[in-house]
């Protein structure tokens, strides 16, 4: 029996700001390979998707999107007119609203006056979509879509799977954003199944949100094989240590700079590259400058995937010093380019790969020593590169999707 999935997502390549969009695309691709029909609902803000076998369906204006019935297509994408996106905060939402209003965009009327109301409005629209769609199971990703998922379940009485890519505890360390945490608690308490991207996250969800083991499943993120950047396209130069991803508290940028200062003191030739942006970027720049590292750091801002791949391939070591990392897809991307990786032990990705170096987050001494070790010992660099690349080759989104499909089948059987 072909299963039909109504999926609420947030971002879709090529324009993604974090792992959520990559994971969402990977799972959808995998599900399509497994003969599953997917109706994907995205916020209107996300630009047109560019998958070869993905058709973008138009959505009506005024927050009243129409999702036509499937006609031979197994993936359809619907869009809800909403400025929401996965890493948005209350403050950013307000800023963007003001900006859009100044520019005269139709950022009024149907849009909520604040983030809270917008999330609720989005959920209301989801209910209207669910009322006229045919599907067997609902699958929603992270807190912004949890309410949409609950609404869809209420009107359709179909089972709901909530997929946890990150929680407020990962983002802030305490789960202190009352509104977000409240939505997470409500969703996770109500969901028929909760899928966590790692055992690390599953344990956090069980501990902090009281999700019982009977409803909790782990489906590790993955990466699909692709052309790696050839070394001939990579320019030679000074040893390069790379940080990539959103520059937020959760990603541990301050530890990276502290470790860089120690490395720089030992190795005058080493350069540090930060690819990405986020609310801690300015602080990170100031910290680096304050430690006299202005000449040693390069901040590239956000990079599209192909450029980021070139940077991975060029770097001598990729560092992910996260405070709390539910998964950490960038580690797989770096390994795919044959780059040695140092990750925090608080990262779900270390459950699926062994050929990496690991540090306790915040242990700057150990982090700096490991960076220096990779730079100093050629056999170490070569072994991490060769074995790491071979190891990620064994992973696939199809496998992750088949585990999601098994979760759907459990629910449909009930």
């Amino acid at each position: 029996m072909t299963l039909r999935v109504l999926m609420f997502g947030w971002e879709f390549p090529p324009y993604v700001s974090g792992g959520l969009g990559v994971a969402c695309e990977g799972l959808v691709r995998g599900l399509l390979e497994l003969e599953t029909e997917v109706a994907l609902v995205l916020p209107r803000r996300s630009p047109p998707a560019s998958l070869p076998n993905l058709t973008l369906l138009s959505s009506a204006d005024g927050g009243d999107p129409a999702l036509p019935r499937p006609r031979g297509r197994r993936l359809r994408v619907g869009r809800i007119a909403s400025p929401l996106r996965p890493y948005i905060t209350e403050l950013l939402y307000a800023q963007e609203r003001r900006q859009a209003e100044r520019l005269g965009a139709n950022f009024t009327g149907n849009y909520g006056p604040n983030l809270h109301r917008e999330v609720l409005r989005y959920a209301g629209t989801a209910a209207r979509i669910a009322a006229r769609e045919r599907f067997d199971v609902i699958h929603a990703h992270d807190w912004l879509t949890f309410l949409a998922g609950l609404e869809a379940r209420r009107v359709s009485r179909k089972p709901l799977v909530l997929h946890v890519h990150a929680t407020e505890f990962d983002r802030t360390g305490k789960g202190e954003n009352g509104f977000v945490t409240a939505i997470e608690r409500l969703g996770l308490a109500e969901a028929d199944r909760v899928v966590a991207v790692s055992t690390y996250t599953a344990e956090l969800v069980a501990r902090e949100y009281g999700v019982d083991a009977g409803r909790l499943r782990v489906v590790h993120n993955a990466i699909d094989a692709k052309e790696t950047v050839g070394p001939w396209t990579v320019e030679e130069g000074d040893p390069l240590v790379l940080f990539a991803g959103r520059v937020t508290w959760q990603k541990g940028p301050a530890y990276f700079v502290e470790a860089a200062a120690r490395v720089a003191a030992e190795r005058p030739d080493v350069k540090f590259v930060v690819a990405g942006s986020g609310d801690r970027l300015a602080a990170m720049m100031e910290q680096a400058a304050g430690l006299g590292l202005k000449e040693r750091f390069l901040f590239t801002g956000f990079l599209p995937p192909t450029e980021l791949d070139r940077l991975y391939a060029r770097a001598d070591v990729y560092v992910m010093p996260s405070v709390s990392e539910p998964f950490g897809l960038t580690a797989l991307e770096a390994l795919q380019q044959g780059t040695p990786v140092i990750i925090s032990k608080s990262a779900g990705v270390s459950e699926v790969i062994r050929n990496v170096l690991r540090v306790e987050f915040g242990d700057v001494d150990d982090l700096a020593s490991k960076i220096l070790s990779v730079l100093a010992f050629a056999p170490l660099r070569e072994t991490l590169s060769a074995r790491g690349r071979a190891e990620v080759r064994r992973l696939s989104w199809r496998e992750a999707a088949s585990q999601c499909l098994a979760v759907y089948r459990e629910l449909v059987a009930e």
Partner: protein
Amino acid sequence: MIPICLYFQVHQPYRLRRYNYFDVGREHRYFDDARNREVLLEVAERCYLPSTAMLERLLERHPRFAASLSLSGTVLEQLGAWAPEALAAFRRLHASGRVEFLAETSHHSLAWLASREEFMAQVALHRARLSDAIGAEARVFRNTELIYSDALAACAEELGFAGVLADGVEPLLGDRSPAGLYRAATPKGLPLLLRHYRLSDDVAFRFSDRSWAEWPLTPARYDRWISDVKGDVVSLFMDFETFGEHQRRETGIFEFFEGWVDFRLGRRGARFLTPSAAIESLPRRDTLSSPRLLSWADEARDVSAWQGNDLQRDALGKLFALERRVRASGSDALAEDFRRLSASDHFYYMATKPEKDDRVHAYFSPFDSPYDAYITYMHVVSDLERRLPRPARARSLHPDSTRPAPRA
């Protein structure tokens, strides 16, 4: 009835402390004394004390019971310092006259793979430590982890040993049975005793494995397997830590083993032989040759457990590049650090093996990963190098060296 030859290996290494890039040139203490003491005390409690007590009971009950032990120089030293009552138990076993003690290198080292000169020095050092700590004179040699080759056997013969031990693997035996006393491919045909690895691993590895079709193994069934072996001797060689440590007390390993010895010696004509007694009394079979290095470790039964990847080869090469300078320094402290770093254990922790072997390596390793083991080791060796007087010229290597030849 086919006689049994038992040999148990007793060893604890000096594990390294947390040591990183920034410690080089500043911190010259390399070993985690607290952790090493803690492990030794734990293992003494769980294994050495109850296992020696079990052997003592068996010796007392059965005049025909005999066994052999090999204690590395490092475990002898640790027992003397931290668990003297366990050392005393080993001395009592020696005093029984029916437990033979074997020769090996002082530091359970890979010296044979890197330097014949250092190897000979460590064998002599072990002889001295064994004599001091236990009062025993070893006649039969076993190399670290049963690392073996024709050249190793020839060296043991030159050193005057009466025999040598190896694993009974196909590269050495071809289609012959391991259940006999063979001759090594040496000038005088040194007697060679071979481990019956299947029957040894039934106890050492599989005993508590609930997914094993034979679980739970009973003394009577195990004895039937042994009685089915055709030949002159069944050699059961394993870690002494099998009893109470690798196989915990709750698995019933003590009851099983003691029960099996009782069962076997309850039958007429059953005998246990020490390696020396086996060498003196058994007929000598064919000459067996292996120019290639063998061992009892991993699926491969070669030296890949310690020299299977670039990290391991790099580390051993870096250490032994310092050998001449360590010797020339005349410093006992430098020599002791150098030798502790030559222990096979450090290299074992750096292995990157497939899943099945890897689980065993990880069980023994104090490190998070083979990479951490390598990094720690390399920084320690860097510090050792800084403490040495000026460099000397490179030397020639002997035939079994796994190190790359020095550049001219």
